[in-house]
């Protein structure tokens, strides 16, 4: 009788936990990063590539990136001084090391203090999370490269990378 009660208890707690996990209520990491917006950031940083949420890199990375826009991953993405300043401030304010969001915090924690990565795909958080995705999958025409988050995470531009929303295209 006692064993039976324990079993029921165990079962209820397991299903409650998984329901919470599915709704994203328990695991903060499953939740979207906070909604952030700045018109200049949204327009300028999405004209050549998808819009990356500021919470994906620490402040020092964004600052370094914004100082090297004339050679931005091999392309000239120069901005005028006022625009550069405003976007840098916005990125810094919402960067991974300034966020309360669990995913942002984990990204930040996965980066050694002495390194300033410019590629999100080079952070240990990213490589760990994608270790089951092969290089060939990333090269698919429907994806392009690992930097094209939106190919599989349709709400990536809103900072939502939750597991339940992943759909890897053929």
């Amino acid at each position, binding site marked *: 009788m006692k064993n039976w009660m324990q079993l029921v208890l165990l079962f209820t707690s397991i299903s409650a936990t998984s329901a919470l996990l599915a709704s994203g209520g328990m695991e903060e990491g499953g939740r979207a990063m906070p909604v952030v917006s700045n018109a200049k950031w949204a327009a300028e940083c999405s004209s050549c590539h998808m819009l990356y949420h500021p919470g994906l890199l620490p402040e020092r990375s964004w600052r370094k990136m914004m100082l090297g826009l004339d050679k931005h991953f091999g392309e000239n993405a*120069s901005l005028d001084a006022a625009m550069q300043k405003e976007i840098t401030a916005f990125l810094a304010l919402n960067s991974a090391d300034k966020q309360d969001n669990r995913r942002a915090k984990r990204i930040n924690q996965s980066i050694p203090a002495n390194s300033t990565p410019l590629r999100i795909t080079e952070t240990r958080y990213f490589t760990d999370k994608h270790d089951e995705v092969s290089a060939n999958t990333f090269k698919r025409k429907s994806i392009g*490269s690992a*930097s*094209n988050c939106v190919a599989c995470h349709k709400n990536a531009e809103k900072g939502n990378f939750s597991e339940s929303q992943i759909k890897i295209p053929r």
Partner: protein
Amino acid sequence: MRKSMLIIGLLLSFKTFAATPQELLKQYESQAKQEHSAFAGFSAEKGATFFKTERLHSDGKKVSCATCHTADPRNQGKTRANKVIEPMAPIVNPKRFTDRAKVEKWFGRNCRDVLERACTAQEKGDYVAYMLSIQ
């Protein structure tokens, strides 16, 4: 009274950004005359050649305007990061060449990416003339 002054002021400030492609060409023309006293007008044919001619970039890759914009400016292009570029030809995309700051921003970036130098006013004018000639 004050209101109308404000409206006039707004219109004037708007004017510095908004332009017609013809106004843009006028500006390039006066710049081109300064660059070359023997300026002989803009040529859509030269613009077409400029658009399609591939050159070897110092990174080892062949590149031209058409690399990203495709050989037909009426088509959508694609950036290297997989993003759609709306067509360049005003016949299908009338917003092109109506915002001087935007035009200068992209010439500033893309001339350096393709030619590894700034474009001359002659080249910019030929390019715009070519885009306007497309039906």
